[in-house]
C-alpha cells in the first residue's frame, strides 16, 4: 500500500521521509483567505451556479428563491458523507459502543404469553442473587406514554397486562451480562392467560377484554384502534366503467432489519440529570416520553443520540427499554447499558403493518380514472405507535399523482396480540401503492393501451391540488416515466418478452416532510430550527436536532451552510447529538430532514452572510449587493482584486459582539382542507418516482429473480447526487425484500417463527439486481435549493414494478406478498389446471394489441406535457385542481358546479351496507367508556 491516497483530515501529508517516517501534514485546504500561506482563491465553479445568476447550471424549471445564495461550493456535487471517516475507521459510536465508567448491564424480562393479566411478580430471588444491583417492575413507572399524544398506550413495563410475547414485564441490572441474564430468569411472574387474537379480522369483533380501552371513546368493545372514512368527488362517475379492477391484497408484516440492534445507556449524573445515550431517529419524542414516565422536567434530561445503525422508521418511537434503563440507573446509581439480542429487535418491531387491502378502480370511456375505492385493514399489533397516522396514509397517499374522478377510502387499524407495527420507510403508503399500480396495469390491459401512456395521460400537473386537497408544487412524475421508458427500452420489451421474462412499471408518490408537527401548532412554533455560531477561529458550528441515521442529514446541513458561506465543508462542524445543545427538532421521519432542516440552515447561514457582507461593506465601501463570496474571500463583483478574506470580514463583524450567532427556522406554509384527517398526508412538497423492473421467473420452480431496475426519482434537486443514488439503490433493496422474500411469519398459535436474520430473509448481494438510478430534478420552489426528499419515496414503486413484471413474464397476477416460490408455483400449477396443460413452458404469455384509445391517450399525454412545462416554469399560473381533466372549472368550488361532488369524513347511514372489510368498523357505535384506563 503506497502513499498518495487521502488521509484522515488533520493528520500526515502522505509524504514519506527518507527514513520511512510520514511527514506531518496540513489540512487539505489552506488557512482562510488572503492572509494565509495560500492567498490565491479557487475560481468560482460556474458549473454549479445556476444560469439565472450567471452560472452554467441549467434551470429548466426556472429560477429559484435560493439561487442567489448559491456559490458553487458544494451543492449538487457528489461528496462523501461528512462522518464517513468515522464510519470506515470504526470510530463511529453506536448505542452499544457507549462505555461509561462503572457501568452495569441491564436485561429485560419479557412475557412468554400472547395476552395475559400480570397477577404478581416476585423479584426476591433475583434481588438475592449476588451481583444484582437493581430490579424494576411496572410499579416503578406507572405513567403512560406513546409517540402520538392522542394515543398514549404504553408503559415502561407491564402495569396490568402483557399484550404480546416479548412485552416487557420487569428488568434487572447486574454487574455483568451473565448475572443479569441469570437474575432475569429468577424473576417469577404469575400470569392469568387471556384469550389472545392474532387474526386482524377478529379485531373488528366485540370481545370481553379488548387489548386496550380506547380512551374515552371506544368503537363497540372491539379492538379497533382507529377507523377512517374519506370520500371525495362524484361517486356517480364510477357507474358504467369502461374498465375496472378489483383486487384483494394480502401483505405480510415486514421488519426494518437495520443492522444495529437497539441499545441504550442511561446515566444520572452528579447533578441528578439524566444523560441518556440512544440510537434514536427522533430523540425529541424519547425526551418527552422520558419526562412523562420518569416524572422529571424535560430540562433535567439530556438525550444524546449516538450514531444510528440504520433506522428506517424502526427507531423513531420512544421505547420502553429506554425508560427501563433510566429507571434501573436511577435505582442503582450507576450507568446502565441495555443491548438487545436480535430476537428482541423483532419483539419491539414497529415494522410495516400486515394488511388486507381491497381496491376497486374504474376508468371511463376516455381512459380517465373515474374512481378509486380503497379499503385497508391493518394489523397494529399490541400498541398504537404511529398507527393513527398509518391508518390515514394507507388511503390518502394514493390520491396522487393521478387525477381522479372520485376517491373513497375506509381504513381501520386493529390491535392484535403481536409485537406492535409502526412506521417503516414509505410509511403507510407502500402497500396501497402496490395494489393501485397493479390495478392500473390491469386496467390498461383491459383498455388495450400501454400502461405508461395511461399514466402519462392522467397525471396531475405541477402546481395543482389533489382531490383530497394536498397542494402539489413541483412534479417530476412525467419526466421520471419518460426516462425509465427510454432507459429500459420499454417499447421494445413490454408484452414482447418470452415466457419467463417480464418487464413492469410502477410509480410512487410520497410526502417530503409532514405538514403538521405532532406535538405543537405549526403556526406557533417552527418545524425545524438551526443555530449557527462562528467564533474567532472561523470554524462554523451548526447546531441542529436533525438525527443522522445514515441517510446523511448531517452532510446535507453542512453542505448547505458551506454553500451559502462559500467555505470548505471541512470548516463546518455539525453538532446534532445532544438535546442540551440542539434546538428542538422532530428528528428523522416523514422524510422531513433535508427539506425542513436544510431550509432552516439556509436561513441561518444567510443571516451570517449578511453580517459578513455588512462588515465587508464597512471596510471596502461596496454595497453588499455588489460583493461576491467565494472560497473564503469576499470581493467586489467587477474587480476581484478589491476584497478581503473571510477571516478579516469575520473579525470585523465580531468587533463589538464576539462570536457571530444566528438562528434560522422553517415553518411550512398554511395548507390543506378542513375535513377530519385533512392534516394527514399534508406536506410542503411531494416526491415522485417511477421504476421499471425486469424479472426472470423460473416457471418450473416459481423462483423469481429481479435482474434490472431503472429507477427514476424526482428529488427536486440532488444536493448530493452520491447520497441520493445511495438512497435510491437502498430503497430498491428494501422494497425488493418485501416483494420477494421478507415476511414476519406467525405460526398457528400466533407465535413469531422467524425472529432472526437467518429465517427472516433480507436480500443478500446475490439477490440484488442492477439498479440504474436516474435523478430527476424538478426544482421545488420551496425546497432548499430546490430539494425534496429521496429517502422513502424511492421504495414505493419497486413493489408494483416487480409484481407487474411477473405478470408480464407468466401471465399471472398474485396478490399475496411476498412472492415466494411456493406461492408462485402454486399459482402456476393452478393456471396449468385451468388451461389444461401439463408443461409449464406452454403457459400463455400476455400480449398487447393496442386499441384506438392508445392514440388518443398518446395525444393527450403530449398535450399535457406542454401544459406541465408551462406550469412548471410558472408561465401558466391559473389554478389547477383535480377535476379539470373531467372538464370542471378550477375557479369555482367543485361542490358548486358538480352535483354529487362531496367531501366526507363519515359514512352516511345508507352507505353502511356496502362498506368493505375495514369499513365494517363503522358499523359499531362509539361509546364512552367509564371504567378501565383513562
Amino acid at each position: 500500500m503506497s502513499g498518495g491516497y487521502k488521509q484522515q483530515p488533520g493528520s500526515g501529508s502522505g509524504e514519506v521521509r527518507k527514513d520511512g517516517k510520514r511527514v506531518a501534514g496540513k489540512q487539505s485546504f489552506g488557512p482562510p483567505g488572503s492572509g494565509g500561506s495560500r492567498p490565491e482563491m479557487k475560481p468560482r465553479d460556474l458549473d454549479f451556479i445556476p444560469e439565472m445568476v450567471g452560472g452554467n447550471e441549467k434551470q429548466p424549471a426556472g429560477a429559484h428563491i435560493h439561487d442567489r445564495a448559491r456559490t458553487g461550493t458544494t451543492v449538487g456535487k457528489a461528496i462523501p458523507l461528512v462522518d464517513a471517516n468515522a464510519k470506515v475507521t470504526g470510530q463511529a459510536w453506536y448505542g452499544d459502543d457507549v462505555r461509561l465508567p462503572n457501568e452495569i448491564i441491564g436485561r429485560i424480562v419479557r412475557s412468554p404469553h400472547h395476552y395475559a393479566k400480570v397477577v404478581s411478580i416476585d423479584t426476591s430471588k433475583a434481588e438475592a442473587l449476588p451481583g444484582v444491583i437493581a430490579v424494576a417492575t411496572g410499579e416503578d413507572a406507572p405513567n403512560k406514554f406513546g409517540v402520538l399524544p392522542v394515543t398514549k398506550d404504553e408503559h415502561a413495563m407491564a402495569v396490568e397486562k402483557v399484550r404480546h410475547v416479548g412485552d416487557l414485564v420487569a428488568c434487572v441490572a447486574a454487574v455483568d451480562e451473565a448475572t443479569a441474564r441469570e437474575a432475569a430468569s429468577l424473576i417469577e411472574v404469575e400470569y392469568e392467560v387471556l384469550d389472545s387474537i392474532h387474526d386482524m379480522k377478529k379485531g373488528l369483533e366485540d370481545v370481553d377484554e379488548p387489548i386496550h380501552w380506547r380512551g374515552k371513546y371506544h368503537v363497540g368493545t372491539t379492538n379497533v384502534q382507529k377507523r377512517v372514512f374519506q370520500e371525495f368527488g362524484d361517486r356517480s362517475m364510477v357507474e358504467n366503467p369502461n374498465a375496472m379492477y378489483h383486487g384483494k391484497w394480502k401483505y405480510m408484516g415486514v421488519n426494518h432489519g437495520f443492522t444495529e440492534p437497539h441499545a441504550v445507556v442511561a446515566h444520572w449524573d452528579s447533578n441528578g440529570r439524566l444523560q441518556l445515550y440512544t440510537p434514536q431517529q427522533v430523540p425529541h419524542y424519547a425526551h418527552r416520553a422520558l419526562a412523562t414516565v420518569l416524572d422529571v422536567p424535560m430540562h433535567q434530561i439530556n438525550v444524546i443520540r449516538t450514531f444510528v445503525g440504520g433506522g428506517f422508521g424502526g427507531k423513531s418511537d420512544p421505547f420502553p427499554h429506554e425508560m427501563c434503563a433510566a429507571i434501573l440507573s436511577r435505582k442503582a446509581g450507576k450507568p446502565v447499558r441495555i443491548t438487545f439480542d436480535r430476537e428482541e429487535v423483532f419483539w419491539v418491531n414497529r415494522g410495516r403493518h400486515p394488511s388486507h387491502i381491497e381496491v376497486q378502480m374504474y376508468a371511463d370511456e376516455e381512459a380517465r380514472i373515474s374512481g378509486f375505492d380503497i379499503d385497508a385493514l391493518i394489523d397494529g399489533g399490541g400498541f398504537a405507535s404511529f398507527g393513527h397516522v398509518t391508518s390515514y396514509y394507507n388511503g390518502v397517499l394514493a390520491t396522487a399523482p393521478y387525477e381522479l374522478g372520485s376517491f373513497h377510502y375506509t381504513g381501520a387499524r386493529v390491535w392484535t396480540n403481536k409485537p406492535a407495527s409502526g412506521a417503516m420507510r414509505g410509511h403507510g403508503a407502500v402497500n396501497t401503492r402496490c395494489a393501485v399500480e397493479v390495478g392500473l396495469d390491469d386496467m390498461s390491459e383491459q383498455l388495450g393501451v400501454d400502461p405508461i401512456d395511461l399514466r402519462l395521460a392522467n397525471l396531475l400537473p405541477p402546481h395543482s391540488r389533489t382531490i383530497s386537497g394536498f397542494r402539489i408544487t413541483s412534479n417530476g412524475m412525467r419526466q421520471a416515466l419518460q426516462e425509465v421508458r427510454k432507459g429500459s427500452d420499454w417499447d421494445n420489451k413490454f408484452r414482447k418478452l418470452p415466457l419467463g421474462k417480464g418487464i413492469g412499471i410502477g410509480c410512487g408518490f410520497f410526502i417530503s416532510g409532514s405538514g403538521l408537527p405532532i406535538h405543537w401548532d405549526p403556526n406557533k412554533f417552527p418545524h425545524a430550527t438551526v443555530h449557527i455560531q462562528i467564533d474567532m477561529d472561523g470554524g462554523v458550528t451548526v447546531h441542529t436536532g436533525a438525527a443522522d441515521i445514515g441517510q446523511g442529514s448531517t452532510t446535507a446541513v453542512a453542505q448547505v451552510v458551506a454553500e451559502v458561506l462559500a467555505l470548505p465543508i471541512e470548516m463546518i462542524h455539525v453538532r446534532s447529538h445532544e438535546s442540551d445543545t440542539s434546538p428542538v427538532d422532530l428528528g428523522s421521519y416523514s422524510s422531513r430532514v433535508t427539506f425542513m432542516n436544510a431550509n432552516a440552515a439556509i436561513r441561518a447561514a444567510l443571516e451570517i452572510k449578511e453580517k459578513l457582507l455588512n462588515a465587508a461593506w464597512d471596510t471596502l465601501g461596496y454595497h453588499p449587493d455588489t460583493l461576491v463570496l467565494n472560497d473564503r474571500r469576499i470581493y467586489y463583483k467587477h474587480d476581484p482584486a478589491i476584497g478581503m478574506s473571510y477571516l478579516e470580514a469575520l473579525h470585523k463583524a465580531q468587533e463589538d459582539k464576539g462570536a457571530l450567532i444566528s438562528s434560522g427556522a422553517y415553518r411550512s406554509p398554511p395548507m390543506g382542507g378542513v375535513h377530519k384527517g385533512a392534516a394527514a398526508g399534508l406536506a410542503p412538497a411531494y416526491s415522485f418516482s417511477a421504476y421499471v423492473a425486469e424479472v426472470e421467473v423460473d416457471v418450473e420452480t416459481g423462483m423469481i429473480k429481479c435482474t434490472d431496475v431503472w429507477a427514476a426519482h424526482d428529488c427536486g434537486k440532488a444536493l448530493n447526487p452520491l447520497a441520493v443514488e445511495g438512497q435510491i439503490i437502498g430503497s430498491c433493496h428494501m422494497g425488493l425484500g418485501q416483494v420477494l422474500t421478507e415476511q414476519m411469519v406467525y405460526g398457528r398459535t400466533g407465535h413469531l417463527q422467524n425472529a432472526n436474520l437467518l429465517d427472516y430473509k433480507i436480500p443478500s448481494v446475490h439477490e440484488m439486481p442492477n439498479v440504474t438510478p436516474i435523478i430527476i430534478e424538478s426544482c421545488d420552489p420551496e425546497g432548499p435549493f430546490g430539494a425534496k426528499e429521496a429517502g422513502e419515496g424511492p421504495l414505493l414503486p419497486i413493489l408494483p414494478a416487480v409484481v407487474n413484471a411477473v405478470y408480464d413474464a407468466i401471465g399471472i397476477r398474485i396478490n399475496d406478498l411476498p412472492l415466494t416460490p411456493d406461492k408462485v408455483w402454486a399459482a402456476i400449477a393452478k393456471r396449468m389446471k385451468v388451461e389444461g396443460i401439463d408443461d409449464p413452458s406452454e403457459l400463455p404469455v400476455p400480449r398487447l394489441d393496442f386499441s384506438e384509445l392508445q392514440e388518443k391517450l398518446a395525444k393527450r399525454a403530449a398535450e399535457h406535457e406542454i401544459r406541465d412545462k408551462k406550469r412548471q416554469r410558472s408561465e401558466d399560473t391559473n389554478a389547477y385542481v383535480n377535476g379539470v381533466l373531467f372538464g370542471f372549472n378550477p375557479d369555482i368550488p367543485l361542490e358548486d358546479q358538480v352535483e354529487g361532488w362531496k367531501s366526507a369524513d363519515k359514512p352516511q347511514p345508507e352507505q353502511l351496507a356496502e362498506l368493505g372489510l375495514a369499513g365494517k368498523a363503522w358499523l359499531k357505535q362509539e361509546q364512552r367508556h367509564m371504567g378501565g384506563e383513562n
Partner: protein
Amino acid sequence: MVGDEYVSMIPAATSEVWSAEVNGQVREVLAPSNAILLDVLRDKTGCLGVKRGCDMGTCGCCTVMIDGQPRLSCLTMAQDANGSSITTVEGLADGAHLAPIQQCFAEHGGSQCGFCTPGFLVASQALLNTNSNPSDAEIACAIEGNLCRCTGYQQIIESIQAAAAIHRGEAESAQAASDAHPDPHPSGPEEPTMPPGHARGNHVWRLQTAAWKRFGRSPKRR
C-alpha cells in the same frame, strides 16, 4: 422461564489468559475459557469497531481477519483464536492514513449508516489481499455473508472495485481512482451510445465518466 432443569450461568467459567496479536499489538487478557471472540475483542481489547448485529453468524458485522482469513468473530471461540494474529477494522489504516479500501468506501457511498461497514471492510480487504483484480462476481462471493440494509450493495461493490484499482497501482488515490475507474471486466463498449442499464449497475456513472472525458470535466467528482 424458570424450571427445575434450569442450568445456572454463574459462576461463569474459569478465567484463562488469552493472548493474540490484535492489530499488530500483542495483547494478553484474562477471559473466561468459554468466551466468544467477539466479546473479548469488544470488551477486553477495546476494539469497539467490531460490531455485533445478530450473534449468530447471519449479518457479518462482526467479521475480523484471523491470520488473514475473514472470520465471524461471533461464531469463534476466543480460545480458538488464541495465539493468532487478528485484524479488525481499527487495524486497516496505516496510522492516520486510511487504507485504500476505507477511503474508497467513504468516497463512493459504500457506507451509509456505517454499522455494517467494519465487516464489509475487513471482508473486502481480505479479498484484495489475495486478489487485486476481482470481478464483480468474485466480490459478491466475498461479501455474501455480510448484510447491508442501507446501500443495496451496489455502491459497496463500486467502492471495492475502486480500491482494487489502487491496489493494482492503476490509480494513485481514491480521488483519481474514482475518475479513471478502469473496468477489469468490461462487458460492453464504453461509449455513451450504449443502451442504459446493460453493462453493469454502475454504468450511469460510467457513462457520465465517458462524457466528461470528452468534455473535459467530471460531472461528479471535482
